[in-house]
Every structure is written in C-alpha cells, then in structure tokens.
C-alpha cells in the first residue's frame, strides 16, 4: 500500500477512527494488525519474514539479558553468541534476498578474470519491500540490548510493533529502541493539536512527493534511460533535478511517516534536516537520512574505531562505513561507488580541515583568518559557496545512485566533462537544453499562454521549489521555538519528546488558525495544480 494511493487515504483514517476510541489495552494489538495488513498489501508471504525476524531478535534479546543477569562464568559467552547468531540470521535473510545474486555475479566475474568461466547461480528473487529497513532496526535493537543501552523489551507485542509499526515499516526512519520502545509504554489519547501537526506534516510530505519528486521524475527518467541522446548540459541539469527528486521523494515519505505516527501519538526521529543547506559533505550526511547515518555511526563507524585511532584510520573507517552504506542501498557496484565517493569527499574535507587548523591555529598574523571566519556574519557568507559546492558534489555523486550500470555513469560523466565550457553558457543553450528535457511541455515560446504559467511542468516545478524553500526556511533553526500551546499534564507527558525538537508540522501547528489554514490551502492547492496523480512508488522502496 503506497502512501500516495487512494487505498492509504481510506486505510489511515479508518485506523485512526478505530484506534482512538479503543481501550488502551487494545490499541497496540490494533496497530499491530493494521501494520501487518499494511505490509501484506504488497506481498502477504513476506509478512512471515518480518514475523520471523521479530521473533528471533526478541528471543535473542531475551537470552542476552538472561545470560547477563545470571553472571555465571559458564554463560559469559552466551550474550555474544546470541548476538552473533541474531546478526547472522537477520543478515542471512537480507543477504539471501538482496545480495546473493550480486555476490554470485561478482565472484563469477573475478573467476572469469583469471580465466575460469562459469554461469553464476542466480536466484532472481523478489526483494521484500523494506527488508533493509526493518533488518537494521532489529539489529540495532539487539546490539543496544547487548551493550546494555536499552533493556530487553519483555512484552513481545511491544517489540513486534516496534519492528512493524506501519508508518515507518517500509522506508524508515530506522527507529532506535531508545526512542520508540518507551513510547509504547505510554498511554495514547486523541490530541487535536498533535493531529493538526501530523496532518500538516503529512501534507508537506505529499507535496514533496507528488509535486517535487514526481514532477522532476517525469523530466529525469527519460534522460537516465537513454543518456546517449542528451547533451552535457542536459545531463548536468538532469543530475541536479534528480538530486531534487530524490530529496522530495525520500524526505516526503519520511514526513508522511512522521506525520502519520504523530497523529497516532508517536514521535519518530527526524530523518532530514534541510540537507541541501549543508556547507560540507560531512554536514550533509548529518542532515540527510539521519536515521541511517546515525545507525551507521553507532553500529559500524564507532565499533571500527571511529576517530579514536588516528586521522588515517578515521578516514579508512569513513570509507568502509560509507561503502557499507552504499551497499545497504542496493546490491550494485554503482551504489558502492556512490557510498565510497561520499566517504572520499569526507576524507578530503577532513584533511583540508586538519591542514587549515594546523596552518592558522597559532597564526602569527595580526588578524587570524581562523578566528575571522568564526565571526557570525562572515561565517554565513563563507557558508554560501560551501553550500553550492556541496550541492554540486552531491548532484554529481547522485549520478551513480540513479544509473543502472557503471558504464552508464561513465558515459554521463564523460559527456559532462568533455563538453566545452561554451556548451554550458548562453541563454540559447539553456533554453534548448531545457526544452529537450520537456521542461516547457509541448508549448513553444511563441505560443505562451497564461495557462502555461500555471501548468507547464518546468514552471510548476520552479513554483513548487519556491514553496519548498519557504517550507525549509520555516523549518530553519532561527525559527526554532520550544513554546507549545497549553496542554494538560498527561498530554504534555505524552508529547514531551516533541517539545524538544519540534518538526515542521509542530511549528506550523503553533501558528494562528488563519495562518495554518493558509498553509494547508497553499500546500493542497500546489498539489492540485502541479502534483502528479499517476501511481508511482517511492524510490527508497527498492532498498
């Protein structure tokens, strides 16, 4: 069941209408049933995989805690053994469904290079939707229990709901037990303000998906399916557009998920924090797919040694972590290279930062440039080229994320870099390039009509980007407020987590009604005018 489907628009209100009047004791079973139903709409059989993963991980948590509690010398290896087994089972399932064919082909390729050729075994299995997400969530839980960061959840129902909670089941955010499990122990009531905030955030999500992501997808998809037919400028524009598409798609999904959960009384972790305003690649990764980045940081980068073993080991750890992150996205070398490039950028940044620090740390110059750059005004001015550079680098790197094969990526990059500078300048070049991308629809410049301003794909997207920019600015830290309207104590308790980090929905929900109304009208109007209503899946479902 897609969020952007009529099915979901019926399903979700039904879930809510039944959920709130139910006694507390039945609320969680109801959500669990709904979550499994939600998942089974794709493939009923694969729900068994979730159930299996849930059960094994829960049993593992139970064994770990039990063994730790007994503190017997003959049981001291039990926790590690249980954890290892759980990781093996979960990753085994993931490997079987997602990576078997990839590794089988890669090994056959290696053998072929040394002269031994054979037909690799290919399973050709359908990838269960969201397997990478719920597997990592389950792994995170068992590691947390092992590390003692969170006690084992004794209630299997709570744990099952933690893994399968439908808003975040298929594409995250990858929730952490520390954040989500305590919320399952709280009582949940209908809250008008929270519902409004959730609905507004869902609207933002639908806007990002239907207008931004699907709008750009209609321009970008033809380019990436036949890149040989396009010029360097068009390929460059398409990669920039894809960068915007993927953000709209994934952050849109996250917004809908977080908004839906919020209506039901749960606070999911923030997954995006205006990533394209980042002034460096490392900052970008602190603001893009935050739930995965922090997962990678806590369960891979830090266990590898993090930055504790010297600068070069730190850089190696970064490369390894990002290569794994790339592989997590998809069983293709293009994803691995995409991940490694992101790791490489951060290594280079780290080296430059170290050099900068060494150069100016004790600068004898009368005005220390390092201190000068820390002045608030200059800091902002300096950020601007950093933001542009980071966006440019990210766009180029996303080419590997979007293409089907490495050869295609090489073809695109070759065309982009071999095009002379003159090919990127001049209004005529740009108009021709945009026209070739169907940016203006089928309307020629000589026949521009008022309707064109409202409905042409490109103009709609420019308008939508303006709306998105306003949304991002509203979400910006300088508008950050902890002030929430008056609530009863019990509601405040339930809502406490949100008060620390209000999301965009919370912020808008705190506005006066006319302003909230206007915001909702603008978002719905933009969806109505520029949204794409053809059925389309979310990009991250393939992972």
């Amino acid at each position, binding site marked *: 069941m897609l969020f952007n489907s009529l099915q979901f628009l019926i399903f979700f209100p039904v879930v809510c209408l039944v959920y709130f009047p139910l006694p507390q004791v039945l609320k969680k079973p109801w959500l669990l049933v709904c979550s499994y139903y939600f998942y089974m709409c794709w493939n009923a059989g694969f729900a068994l995989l979730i159930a299996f993963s849930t059960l094994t991980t829960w049993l593992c948590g139970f064994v770990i805690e039990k063994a730790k509690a007994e503190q017997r010398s003959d049981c001291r290896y039990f926790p590690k053994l249980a954890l290892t087994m759980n990781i093996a089972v979960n990753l085994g399932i993931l490997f079987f469904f997602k990576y078997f064919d990839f590794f089988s082909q890669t090994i056959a390729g290696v053998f072929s290079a040394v002269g031994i050729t054979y037909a690799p075994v290919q399973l050709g299995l359908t990838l269960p939707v969201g397997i990478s997400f719920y597997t990592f969530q389950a792994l995170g839980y068992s590691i947390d229990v092992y590390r003692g960061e969170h006690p084992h959840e004794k209630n299997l129902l709570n744990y099952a709901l933690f893994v399968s909670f439908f808003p975040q089941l298929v594409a995250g955010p990858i929730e952490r037990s520390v954040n989500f499990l305590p919320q399952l122990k709280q009582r949940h009531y*209908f809250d*008008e303000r929270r*519902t*409004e905030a959730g*609905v507004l955030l869902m609207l933002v999500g639908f806007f990002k998906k239907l207008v931004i992501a699907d709008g750009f997808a209609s321009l970008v998809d033809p380019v990436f399916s036949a890149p040989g037919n396009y010029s360097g400028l068009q390929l460059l524009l398409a990669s920039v557009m894809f960068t915007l598409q993927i953000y709209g798609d994934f952050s849109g999904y996250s917004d809908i998920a977080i908004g839906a959960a919020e209506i039901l009384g749960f606070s999911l972790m923030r997954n995006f924090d205006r990533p394209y305003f980042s002034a460096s690649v490392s900052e970008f990764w602190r603001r893009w797919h935050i739930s995965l980045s922090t997962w990678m940081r806590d369960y891979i980068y830090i266990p590898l040694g993090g930055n504790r073993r010297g600068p070069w080991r730190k850089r190696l750890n970064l490369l390894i972590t990002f290569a794994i992150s790339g592989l997590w996205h998809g069983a293709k070398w293009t994803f691995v290279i995409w991940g490694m490039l992101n790791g490489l950028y951060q290594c280079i940044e780290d080296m430059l930062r170290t050099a900068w620090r060494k150069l100016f740390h004790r600068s004898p110059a009368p005005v220390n440039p390092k201190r000068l750059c820390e002045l608030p005004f200059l800091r902002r001015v300096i950020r601007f080229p950093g933001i542009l550079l980071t966006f440019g680098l990210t766009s180029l790197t996303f080419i590997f994320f979007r293409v089907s094969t490495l050869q295609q990526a090489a073809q695109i990059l070759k065309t982009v870099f071999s095009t002379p500078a003159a090919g990127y300048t001049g209004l005529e070049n740009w108009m021709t390039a945009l026209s070739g991308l169907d940016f203006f629809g089928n309307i020629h410049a000589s*026949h521009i*009509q*008022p*309707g*064109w301003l*409202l*409905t042409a794909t490109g103009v709609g997207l420019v308008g939508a980007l303006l709306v998105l920019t306003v949304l991002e600015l509203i979400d910006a830290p300088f508008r950050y407020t902890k002030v929430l309207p008056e609530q009863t104590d019990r509601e405040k308790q339930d809502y406490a987590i949100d008060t620390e980090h209000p999301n965009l929905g919370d912020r808008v929900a705190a506005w006066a*009604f006319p302003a909230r*109304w206007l915001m*909702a*009208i603008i978002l*719905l*109007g933009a*969806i*109505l*005018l*520029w*949204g794409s*209503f*053809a059925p389309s899946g979310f990009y991250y479902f393939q992972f």
Partner: protein
Amino acid sequence: MRLIKLLLKGLLVTVPLALLLITVNYRVDGSAVLRGDKFELEVAQAWLSDKAVGNFTNAINERSVMRLYVENLNQPLDTLVLGSSRAMQITAASTGAEGYFFNAGMTGADRKDILSTFYLFDRADKLPENLVIAVDPWIFFDSEEALNFRSDDNLYREFLSQRLGMETEYTPEDQSVRRKALTSPAYFQENIQYFYSDHSEEERPTILANRMDDLDEDIRLADGTQWYSASVRNASQDQVDHNALEVANVDYAQLYGFTDVDEELLRQFQAFISYAVNRGVNVTLVLTPFHPIYWDMLSVNPDYSGVQQAEQAMRNLAAQQGVLLVGSYNPTDANVSNEDFYDGLHIRRESICKYYDDGKKVEAPEPVQQEITQDAEQDSETERQT
C-alpha cells in the same frame, strides 16, 4: 467535541478546494467527459432553443450532438427523421407532420447511425410518435466502405443486444468515468491547461437566430435540416448536372461493389422496424431518389445492382410490417427530374413533396413477392409477439 472541531477545520480547508476542483472540471470539461463536447453541446442547446447553427464544419461530431440533444431533450418528439445527408431536406412541411419535429439526419450516416440514434431516444425513453427513416441503399451493403468511421459501433451493438435480442458483444457504458472525472485532480490540471490554451484557431459554430438566406455557408436549421449555402441553392442546372455526372463517373465508395443485399443486415433492419412498430411508433420508410444522371448509371451497372434489390426489399418489408413507404430511388418513379436536385445525391427541399405528395403519404404499392429468409420471418414474428 474536539474531534468535531478538528473535522470542521479540515472541512474548511478541503471544501473550498474540492468545490474549485469540481467546478473547474464540470465547467471547463476539456475532454468532454462530463458535459459532452463543447461545441457539440452548443449546437444541441441551440437546436433545443429553436436556433439555427452556422459554421457547422466537419470538426463537429454529429453523433455527439445527437447524444447531447437527446440528453437535454425535455419532451419526446412528435416526429423524428433518421437518415444520411440525403434525408436532411425532409421537413415537417414535407412530411405533413404536426407538433415537435426534428430531423436527425447525419452526414454519411450508415446503418449503425440509424439504429444507434434511434436507440438514444429509446434508451432515454423519449421515443417519437412518428419515425421517418430515409433508407439509403448502402445500409444493406456489407462492406467497410459503407460504414462511417464516426458511427458508434458500441452503441449499435448495445441496441442489437439489448433491444433486438441479437447476440453481439458490446461494452456497457461506464458511468463511473463521469464521477471519476468530476473529482479527478489530474483532470483538473488538464482543464486548467485547456482553459488557458489558445482557442483562436478553433472552428466554433455560430448560433443564428434566423435562417439567413444570404449567408454563403451551409446552415443547420433549428429542426436539424440542412439549409444549403446560396451558391449551392442557386447553382445553375448545368452545374448540378455536371456534378451528377462527376458522381456517376467516379466509383462512389459507399455503393461501389454493392451487388447483393446482405441478408443479415436486412434481418437486422427488419427486426429494428418490427421493434419500433411494437413500441407504438408510426414508421414511414422514405426512399430518396437519386439524380437521373446518376440513376442511369446505377440502374444499368451490375456493380450497383444491390441498389434496386434494396428498394425491392424495402417495399416487401413495408408491406410485411404494415408501415408506409414513400418515394423511390428511381427518379422517374419518384416523379422528380434533374431540376429537383442540388447535386448528384441531394434532392431539393421543395421537391420532396413531389413524391411525399405534399404531406399526404403515398401508400406502399402492392408488394412483389420476394423470398424473405425464414429466419427473418421468424424474427419479426417473435418481435411482434413480444
């Protein structure tokens, strides 16, 4: 209470946009899903409000016009005329009809048009009291050439299946399409684009209050009949005869190779007449004469021998069903000559009374015994019983 308050707020946001969506979709209706084709609707509304229509170009779909005409018709007609452009000169005066008269003749109408137009009235429960069918011979010609690409095959099949009980496949019209279109956001976008697009080159029909004799263009009058342009009406006899000669010298596609009346098509037509009679409709069959020059060719060329067979079949049918038949394809039998034509195919409006006997219908002559298939007889018998 809080829930109601929230729902009200939700309605305050969604209702204005929903209203905008529905209003734009209904009013603009760029793809003519909800209200029918824009210009066709204008034509239908003009006719219903007793106005003539000019600039009636080929871009206007007469089949759509008829659908919309029937949909918006408030009361059943007293007299309805069906047929091709050769029937478009039949007026209330020439048939002696009284009351609400409409000529639903269509350019190049084929057998599907005749039956499906009748079905439109039948389905809407607006059957006329009198039905005049101008039977062109090609409606019994089983050839692709005798069909009009614009005719509604599905509606025709639905009529055969639903009313005449003949087994044929058709797709029932999906009424949900309209409902979906009304609330479709994608259709809203299409409509906005359509609304603001360039319509300057569209050939819009002109609504005329009067007949406007001086206007040099064809006009469709309020009764559906065609009022030819001054140049056609005032053409010299030489021009008319020359045109008839041209028609006779080229292989007129709708009739060329029509050597035999198709038994199955005849059976369908018989069942149709039988059905109409059983529904209490007074049927009159009209055989519109051809121009004498053209007829000379049709009557001797064996490639067109089906034309005379069709006339005979209609005479038999009229006798069998007890319906009136007037006219003849043969201009001599119909008492008309070269001067009575606009061109090789179309008779002058004022000349129709020559064979329609100025409103007094000519009784069908004694039937000539001709074998009618056993099936057809049984069919019409069954129809009569039902």
